[in-house]
């Protein structure tokens, strides 16, 4: 019976967290883009940027509401399903959660009201400030939740007090807890992942508009803005990912071994497996393509130094391999794909044919799925790779359950959540679809074609579609406009 409760509770957690995590990276990423759009409007006073920001605010708001609704579940289910865990970590998570509630939640949700409903009620400056606060709130929220998660992966700044059910971690040093060994790299990687998603999301919608020849001026500008953001952060993800892997090898070697499908420590340099099929029974990766010594070189700088394999850990302390291996490799492959796709877009941009290359635009329309999958894949790898521990080397996942909750109850709640989530997801897609189809049209009708100042986004976008008439009616060439 207890096995079922454990399995079902883990299933429920993965369902609710993965559903929830569709939305936070999207709103963190879009939030940052909204700040750029509105700041450009504040500088240029070009109403087209106001129209751009208004349109994306609508998309942002729908997704944000989904994030809030699915996020409340997260906070509840630590107590409902994982009561023993909550008793154990409460003292440590306490300060992080208090900080998140006070600094992040109130900030985001309060100013969101101004963002969505306040266009006609507050000054431009106040609206811009609210956008900044919402974007900042989203980042704060990420900070504190990543601190709490990182502490589970690499506990620091605490001591264990009490025995049996009353045993728990108590904080000894707040800042050591906050800056535990994996916090900084994890946080950077999470934020970078969110900004890539933001970039690809706006590119997807904009590419669609360009292909359908709608809202051309706005769509081109937004696309180039998204491309700049996505390119910068796709490269950043590569660098940050490397440092994170090095941290994992220091602090959670079993997890790294699972990521890499590295069963046997062996002698000499450890290879890096690019792909393959994991066979956990035979402890091998079949049909694999591996580069000898690369893993050792990347992690330690010495291509001949062996990296700890799973055989260094007792059976009971090993994480499962298949799920972390595939999701980790999926994330990396997608990361490489983002870099490749962005560079390809810049090549056509340089050739001045970006918006005439229809097949590439279609690729961008569908590529938005990539960052969603990469964000999910990275987290699945990180969390399944942490098993069998819920708090690394201190508390096992199997010991962390609520003692009084029975399998039937968990099953009932899974059914409840599955129903509501499938439903919610469909409604979210429907509403997004309608908003995107409606486009920024009604905002643009009030736009006056009068832009004295030339912003950097105009300057960047014009190169991608030279000689085309912009919505303002003038032939867009930066040099001419500046002179006029």
């Amino acid at each position, binding site marked *: 019976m207890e096995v079922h409760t454990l399995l079902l509770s883990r299933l429920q957690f993965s369902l609710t967290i993965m559903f929830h995590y569709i939305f936070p990276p999207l709103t963190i990423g879009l939030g940052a883009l909204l700040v750029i759009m509105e700041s450009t409007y504040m500088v240029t006073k070009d109403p087209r940027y106001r129209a751009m920001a208004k349109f994306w605010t609508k998309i942002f708001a729908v997704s944000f*509401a989904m994030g*809030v*609704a699915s996020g*409340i*579940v997260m*906070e*509840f289910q630590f*107590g*409902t*399903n994982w*009561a023993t865990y*909550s*008793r154990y970590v*409460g*003292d*440590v*998570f*306490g*300060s992080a*959660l*208090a*900080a*998140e*509630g*006070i*600094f992040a*939640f*109130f*900030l985001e*949700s*309060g*100013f*969101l*009201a*101004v963002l*969505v*409903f*306040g*266009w*006609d*009620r*507050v000054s431009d400056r106040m609206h811009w400030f609210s956008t900044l606060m919402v974007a900042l709130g989203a980042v704060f929220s990420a900070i504190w939740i990543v601190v709490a998660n990182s502490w589970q992966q690499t506990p620091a700044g605490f001591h264990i*007090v009490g025995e049996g059910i009353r045993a728990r971690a*108590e*904080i*000894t040093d*707040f800042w050591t807890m906050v800056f535990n060994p994996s916090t900084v790299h994890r946080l950077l990687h999470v934020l970078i992942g969110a900004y890539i998603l933001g970039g690809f999301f706006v590119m997807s919608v904009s590419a669609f508009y360009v292909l359908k020849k709608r809202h051309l001026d706005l769509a081109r500008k937004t696309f180039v803005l998204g491309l700049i953001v996505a390119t910068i952060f796709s490269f950043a993800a590569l660098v940050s990912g490397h440092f994170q892997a090095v941290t994992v090898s220091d602090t959670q070697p079993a997890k790294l071994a699972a990521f890499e499908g590295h069963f046997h420590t062996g002698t000499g340099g450890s290879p890096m497996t690019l792909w393959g099929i994991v066979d956990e029974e035979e402890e091998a990766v079949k049909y694999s393509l591996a580069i000898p010594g690369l893993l050792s070189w990347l992690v330690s700088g010495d291509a001949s130094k062996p990296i700890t394999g799973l055989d260094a850990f007792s059976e009971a302390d090993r994480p499962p391999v298949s799920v972390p291996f595939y999701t980790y490799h999926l994330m990396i492959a997608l990361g490489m794909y983002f870099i490749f796709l962005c560079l390809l877009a810049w090549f056509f941009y340089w050739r001045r044919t970006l918006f005439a290359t229809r097949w590439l635009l279609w690729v961008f329309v569908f590529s938005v799925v990539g960052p969603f999958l990469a964000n999910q894949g990275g987290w699945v790898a990180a969390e399944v790779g942490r098993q069998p521990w819920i708090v690394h080397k201190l508390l096992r996942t199997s010991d962390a359950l*609520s*003692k*009084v*909750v029975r399998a039937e*109850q968990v099953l*009932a*709640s899974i059914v*409840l959540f599955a129903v*509501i989530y499938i439903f919610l997801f469909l*409604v979210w897609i429907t*509403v997004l679809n*309608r908003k995107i189809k409606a486009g920024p049209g*009604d905002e643009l009708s009030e736009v006056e074609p009068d832009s004295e100042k030339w912003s950097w986004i105009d300057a960047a976008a014009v190169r991608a579609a030279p000689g085309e008439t912009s919505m303002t009616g003038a032939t867009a060439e930066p040099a001419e406009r500046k002179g006029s």
Partner: protein
Amino acid sequence: MDLNLLWFGLLGVLLTGYAILDGFDLGVGMLHLRARTDLERRIVMNSIGPLWDGNEVWLVTFGGALFAAFPHTYATAFSAFYLPFMLLLFALIFRAVSMEFRSKRDSTTWRRAWDVAFFGASGLATFLFGVAVGDSMMGLPIGPDMEFQGDLLDLLQPYGLLVGVLVVTTFLMHGSIYLYLKTEGDFQARIHAWMWRTFSVFLTAYIITTAVTLATIPHAISNFTQYPLASVVVLLNILAIANIPRAIYHKRPFYAFVSSAATIAALVFLFGMALFPNLIYSSLNADWSLTIYNSSSSQKTLGIMRNIAFIGMPFVLAYTTIIYWTFRGKVDLGKFSY
């Protein structure tokens, strides 16, 4: 400073804030189907449109603070109230979504379905909150290991259901006064009658609940012998309740709203008085109760949290004020409305 007491107090403040703020928007949700036309229903939803999200954050923060300050209480209570809390989550999610999506399509069937969802979810959430409060007043079967030893039936006792009804009527009254403040014309005139009706229903439930509490739950009032000054709050509570019909009669809805908010604050205070120093009273053996001392985080954590709260609170108050100031006045349906 007794940090445990401080955090008991701060949790009380968060719960009061939540009950007053989400109280009116849950109440508005329960009154939603009483609005007749599509326009009226849009006015009802938009009266809370920009605010409900911020109001719900008080609950999220209350939950976070409970987890942080009293992890044992959080763990025991949330695992004990497993199914009711799952239903509560279900209701809260549906409420949020129904508001977000109702006016996104013109179809009558679509809008009617979301109207019913909004009404039902608001009612269910309110009732479940009330049941949880009632059960806590009564005490739960908690064993020596701090774990809940009962089942779902222990959570559905008559007293819990009675308090559930009381909370529903309180929020109905609170919500109708709020709606009166936010509306104009014929619609407002009809809401005037709603205020009278909801007030009388609330008063009846209040009197019955008070009588039953005094008669059957002795530990709920034992603190008054130790802290006689707390009786002042009882007096204030009665004055606040008495002021509601007076303000409605004189068409001073703002005073009625303040009085109704004060009534809710006083009720939360009395709830705290009934519990103190326990957070979960064990009906099996009073010694097994979870108190603000035996279920708390360490003094160090409570101290860090106090510092964070004192730094953050002025900001929270500042922007809550800004938001309510921005959206003051009557409901004004624009193109950004629901």
